[in-house]
């Protein structure tokens, strides 16, 4: 529980990254979520991704809405500024923060209530604007903090802990992200760290709107038989189309697998996403086919995971707005205020007589 201070003890042998930071430097407060919550696994994966990417923790801004998932930014990156905003409105707050300082890394952490119900509009609009962020939806199909109501991502026919059957159609966040124009779309499972960590790394490095839907079972209210978001169900129906390694530019690029099953996608900044194909015919660069495939597999009762779509040449909101390279929050009077002489000229234009 968070009122317990986290021990400051550090094992001397802890692995260090290129900046000399250990895992511990990327941790936050102790989680107040239930023991075994999928969200905590995602926090651990985020910590690992940031550690492996050699990110300076204070150069990350963590933003969230309201709900169990939205509490998690407190449990990672303790040296980063965090903002637990209002329910469903994190995307707009993150957009504003990003406009103010384009140099930081923006991590949007949300849940299915936040993203697919109350905040579906903001989610879609932040994505369609191409805000440079990694948007993680910790998706458990249920409202945990209010004890077990269905969320909008719950599948038709799935059963609540109290025994109710969901009659409504589910909202598929990855399909929504694809339609809205996200330039990086992935889905993963909180219980599969080997798949999740590289996806998070690639998503953070992506210079556009990256959306990762992470199915994350709710141990307290949605992990029973009849739920389609339980650990057992997800394990049984998880159909990964690929696995990937995220390689930064300086790492040696060496293929050690049979040709045809591995493909390197070089991104704009020189980083490489190495795809280990599981489905030979799946091309994550084809948005239309990706949407088609997702719908087909969904109809067959399967949940597709992996890197679903990638545009290696994304265009972000700042490019669309043609803003200066320097962060707007660093501009001073000289850059912002046109001065008294310009106002004299304007007064002449407005002159009445």
């Amino acid at each position, binding site marked *: 529980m*968070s009122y317990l201070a986290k021990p400051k003890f550090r094992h001397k042998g802890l692995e260090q990254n290129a900046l000399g930071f250990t895992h511990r430097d990327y941790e936050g407060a102790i989680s107040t979520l239930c023991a075994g919550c999928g969200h905590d696994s995602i926090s651990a994966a985020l910590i690992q991704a940031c550690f492996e990417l050699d990110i*300076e*923790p*204070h*150069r990350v*801004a963590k*933003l969230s809405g309201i709900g169990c998932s939205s509490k998690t*930014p*407190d449990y990672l990156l*303790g*040296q*980063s*500024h*965090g*903002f*637990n*905003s*209002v329910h469903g*409105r994190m*995307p*707009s*707050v*993150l*957009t*504003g*923060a*990003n*406009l*103010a*300082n384009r140099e*930081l890394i923006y991590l949007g952490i949300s849940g299915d209530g936040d993203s697919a119900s109350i905040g579906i*509009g*903001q989610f879609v*609009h932040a994505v369609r*604007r191409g805000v440079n962020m990694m948007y993680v939806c910790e998706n458990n199909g249920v409202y945990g903090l209010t004890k077990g109501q269905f969320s909008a991502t719950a599948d038709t026919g799935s059963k609540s802990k109290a025994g109710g059957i969901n009659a409504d159609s589910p909202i598929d966040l990855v399909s929504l992200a694809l339609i809205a124009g996200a330039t990086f779309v992935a889905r993963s499972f909180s219980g599969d760290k080997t798949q999740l960590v590289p996806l998070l790394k690639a998503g953070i490095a992506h210079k556009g709107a990256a959306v990762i839907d992470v199915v994350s079972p709710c141990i307290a209210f949605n992990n029973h038989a009849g739920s389609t978001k339980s650990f057992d169900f997800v394990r049984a129906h998880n159909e990964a189309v690929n696995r990937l390694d995220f390689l930064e530019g300086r790492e040696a690029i060496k293929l050690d697998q049979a040709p045809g099953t591995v493909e390197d996608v070089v991104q704009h900044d020189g980083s490489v996403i190495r795809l280990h194909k599981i489905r030979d015919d799946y091309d994550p660069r084809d948005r239309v086919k990706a949407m088609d495939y997702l719908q087909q597999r969904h109809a067959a009762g399967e949940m597709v995971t992996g890197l679903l779509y990638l545009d290696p040449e994304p265009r972000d909101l*700042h490019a669309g*707005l*043609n*803003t*200066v*390279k320097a962060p*707007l*929050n660093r*501009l*001073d*009077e000289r*850059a*912002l*205020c*046109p*001065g*008294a002489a*310009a*106002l004299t000229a*304007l*007064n002449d234009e*407005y*002159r*009445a*007589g």
Partner: protein
Amino acid sequence: MPKPIEATNDFVVKFANVNGSGSASANELFARSILRMGVPIASRNIFPSNIQGLPTWYEVRVSGEGWLGRRGGVDLMVAMNPQTWDKDVASIDPGGYLFYDSSKPLPPSKFRPDIMVIGMPLTEICNRTYTDPRQRQLFKNIIYVGALTALMGIGAEVVESLIREQFKGKERLLEPNFKALHIGRDYASEHLEGLCKLKVERSDLVGDRIFLEGNDAIGLGCVYGGASVAAWYPITPSTSVAESFNAHCRKLRVDPETGENRFAIVQAEDELAAIGVVIGAGWNGARAFTATSGPGISLMQEFFGLAYFAEIPAVVFDIQRGGPSTGMPTRTQQSDILLCAYASHGDTKHVLLFPEDPRESFDFAAEALDLAERLQTPIFVMSDLDIGMNQWLCEPLAWDEARRYDRGKIMTAEMLESGMDFGRYLDVDGDAIPYRTLPGTHPTRGAYFTRGTSRDRYAKYSEEGAVYVDNMQRLLRKFETAKLLVPKPVVHQAARKARFGVIYFGSTAPAMAEALDALGKRGLWVDAMRIRAFPFSDEVIEFVNAHEQVFIVEQNRDGQMRTLLINEGAIDPARIVSIPHYDGAPITARFILAEVAERLGQLEPRLEGAAE
């Protein structure tokens, strides 16, 4: 038939037109030609929520004395809209004038015996001169401007020079416009000579004053005040704030070397997202604002509570319109005062500024951006449609070159490095304003978690009652600090010692100035105070307590400012009498005069008698 009104440089002309008929630019040409004659005017659009077809009016107050409010009444009605004919004719003051299109004969019952009728066969002239129906419509407007300016003694060269300026770069349009103008002028001198005794005489009373809209002034004020992020959602009557900011930024905020923008404007998906963007940008250290109107303010409520409680700078321009609900979207009111003062659930109080005209809108826009960062809270600038969407004659805008932005208390990396204690909600200076850090400042110090939930002085989550109360009390003390920083009220003492006072604010100011003058002339002495901000500085409460009775004139039904005064100033409700005006049209001097005089008469019959 009473004697026709004779007036020079002091009368009201009202144009009744059909929306979308091209009358707006012709009517503005008429108004500007009077300004060009050196005579002050106040012009107001009264327009429908519609693109084409519904009635629209344009009122021009000509005032050599410089009264810029609505006077009330109409001396000359230019009746160009059959839909509203009856009401338009009825609104003319006895002895006033009706100018109309006499192409089609109208029965005598359509007129009044106590007004002067000036008919001109506009349609007939247009049909004779032009074949294209669109031209017939557009030039009809110019033709009546020609006739009216000739009737009033405004020289052709004055109007021509304005037309020349208007069509700079489109010179091929000059000749046809000149032609139409002269058709009107020639007809007036041949057939209508001497009929109109409303005259404009050349003067030099305009001086170096400027003529601009409040929304434009706000957009420019945000450029000068250093706003770099704007987020908005289109809504009448605020839309032109964002458009103005955009237009001025494109001229004044583009890096000359790279061509890149030193600003970011997001047209959001709704008002919720607009204020969210503003709060995100403010949290991250950029000056940010949104512009909206009542319905948008309603939608933003939850976020206002967050910004208040988490202490994030934000500037909101509320260009008020008629409420509640969709209300009267194209009419003016001052009816969002309580909504903004106590916006959001829980205990909240917000800083409000009340500009009186476009010039003060410019000043307050820049001021609000400073106050938001100084106080780390949302600042509401309460304009309205009357100020926002009409061009007002006002003093030139001014900017002190030595002025520096007040960025408030931001703890820098150097300060953190030097070992200063950082508590995000810690009152270190006794003014209840804590320091904040911006994201990305320091590798190991100064990071904190911003939240709308309760927390302690070091931003650590806490549900403890004492910790919560400690923070809420500090927010109250911060509001006391705000009291010292916001613009002070402006007091006009009566020429003689007055037992009664009158309070007003915002767009009521010019009509009040004229009403006070008229009251004085009738021997009715009242002190007047214009409130410029909430929280109320001590002077506001002292003013109320210094008078036996205070009238408060406001453009809403419920006396919202009165409620706020009574609530915040612990004032006996009996001391303040509400004078509400809320039909959606800007308040008039005649209305204020009549209402105040009547109440003074009730309070002190002798006074009213003495005034006769």
